[in-house]
């Protein structure tokens, strides 16, 4: 059996708070193959950003394992971690706060190269930066500009160039387009997809936007309060959503077409609570239109409901298969 690019097993992060432990990420499992994109969808507060940071070891995990090219990086010491750092990169949501305002475009893109001394001489350094700028579609004349002189789209291109500088194999994209206008968003999405085709990159694409995640992902995880409620190949998830939360989420997206107006909204009522010391049982049950007694009291496992399609809902447990 071949080794996947990234494999996450039972990953957990519990933050201590005055009111008890906050289960930000609570037992997540998935794998990402080379050249594939896994989308992580969920509303704010569902733990998707924490999940990204756990995998990059920006936050220490409470429990679980993260295998990158077969090695459990959660067990790595500083030295080993620094060796794999270049291979795992991050693209940030906010193209404003993620760029040091006092550095020029060239300095920003050059930072990773300098940290790892990934160049032979001054000439090589300048050439490498020029190549990166070309790859992400930044005109050369911006090399000496500063971030505040550029628009959001160009800033995000800097962020991407920087992430590519060390030739990574895997990139966590944390809402990379949610701060951008639609026309710019399309440019960046196209760029990310082109880069994947050329370089065989693996992406973990974190977003709250279902249409974006549908567009870019091969597989999708729907998260709710720290847990995975549905894990499926993209087409299967959108054609056949199995979890009531996914169904509600899909129904809630406004579609820019008149005839597509859904006449009867199965509105999900209520709002996300915070998973502090959660009781066993389905965390979505209090908002779920289909909830019943059996949703409470015990944890609901992910059940296979189709090819590569998993959902965590008692409705499947009862009927054994798709209802």
């Amino acid at each position, binding site marked *: 059996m071949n080794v996947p690019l990234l494999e996450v097993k039972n990953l957990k992060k519990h933050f201590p708070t005055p009111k008890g432990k906050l289960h930000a990420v609570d037992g997540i499992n998935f794998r990402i193959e080379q050249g594939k994109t896994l989308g992580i969808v969920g509303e704010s507060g569902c733990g998707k950003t924490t999940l990204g940071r756990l995998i*990059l070891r*920006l936050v220490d995990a409470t429990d679980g394992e993260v295998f990158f090219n077969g090695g459990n990086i959660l067990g790595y010491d500083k030295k080993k971690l*620094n060796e794999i*750092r*270049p291979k*795992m*990169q*991050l693209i*940030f949501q*906010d193209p404003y*706060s*993620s*760029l*040091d*305002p*006092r550095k*020029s475009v060239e300095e920003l893109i050059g*930072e*990773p190269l300098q*940290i*790892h001394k990934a160049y032979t001489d001054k000439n090589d350094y300048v050439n490498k930066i020029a190549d990166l700028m070309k790859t992400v579609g930044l005109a050369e*004349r911006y090399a*000496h500009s*500063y971030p505040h002189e550029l628009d959001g789209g160009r800033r995000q291109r800097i*962020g991407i160039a*920087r992430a590519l*500088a*060390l030739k990574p194999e895997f990139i966590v994209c944390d809402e990379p387009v949610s701060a951008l206008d639609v026309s710019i968003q399309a440019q960046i999405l196209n760029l990310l997809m082109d880069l994947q085709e050329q370089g065989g990159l693996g992406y973990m694409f974190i977003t709250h936007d279902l249409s974006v995640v549908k567009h870019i992902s091969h597989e999708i995880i729907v998260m709710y309060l720290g847990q995975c409620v549905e894990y499926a190949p993209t087409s299967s998830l959108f054609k056949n959503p199995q979890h009531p939360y996914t169904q509600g989420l899909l129904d809630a997206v406004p579609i820019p077409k008149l005839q597509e107006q859904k006449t009867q909204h199965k509105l999900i009522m209520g709002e996300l609570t915070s998973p502090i010391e959660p009781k066993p049982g389905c965390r979505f049950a209090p908002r779920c239109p289909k909830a019943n007694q059996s949703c409470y009291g015990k944890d609901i496992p992910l059940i296979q409901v189709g090819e590569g399609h998993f959902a965590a809902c008692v409705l499947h447990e009862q009927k054994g298969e798709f209802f």
Partner: protein
Amino acid sequence: MNKTLETPPAKPKKSKTVRKLRRFFRVLFARKLVILCTVILVIMALAAVFASFVAPFNPYSQNLGNSLSPANSTNILGTDMLGRDVFSRIVYGTRVSFSVGIVSVAFSGLVGMVLGVVSGVAGGVVDSFIMRVMDAMLAIPLIILAMFLGAVFGQGLGNVMLAVGIAMIPSYARLTRGQVLTIREMDYVTAGTIFGASKLRNAVSHIVPNCIAPNIVLMTMNLGGAILAEANLSFLGLGINPPTASWGAMVSDGFMFLSMHPVIAIAPGIFILLIVLCFNIVGDAVRDALDPRLRGTF
């Protein structure tokens, strides 16, 4: 001229430093009062440097026969108890004021920033220790500190600078630590970590450069306070050794003649007022000019 669909060539841009400086000075001098204050400060600074040319008399030469003379055409502000020319002493006193202001502020700013950065970056026990020491320092009154230093090292200009400087360290340390704590959480520092940068590298390349600006502002605003502190100490006799001319000491000396010869005490007092006021107004303007959120509002 008719335009076409060709992309226009990028406008040649002036270098970033030049544009930044221009913007800085434009906001700084947007108000006439600030210009006036800057001019006054420049004149005072020049007077301090060229005191020997500006002052009509030697500030130390005593002439007991001509003591306490009122203002006249020779001694434009009169003479003091020992017959020394008051105006000349004021001119020389500018030196003390400026040197105390600049040296103590530079000293406290530097030490405070280093402590603040160390505290913010290291965190944990180091942070708690440094901050508790700063809290303790805030509890020591300036006068007690000056008396203590005077008792240990003897009185003098250097000790006044040291006392005033030490007293101001906590404000810089706290400001810098606060800045560091904010910047430390910024995405661009996280980006550094992702690339594999160490804590030290992140501190040097991202954190320190981004917390200098507010410190510069605080320094400008503290200049006036430092000068006032020196004047206070000298007034109380804890400052500069006589016969060195210091405005605070001159006010103190002239105090006993206030009813008969008010000029001796009031003239240096006015200069203290003037220099502190000017530094504060310019300090305010520097803060506005360095704050990007306020740019363009003038």
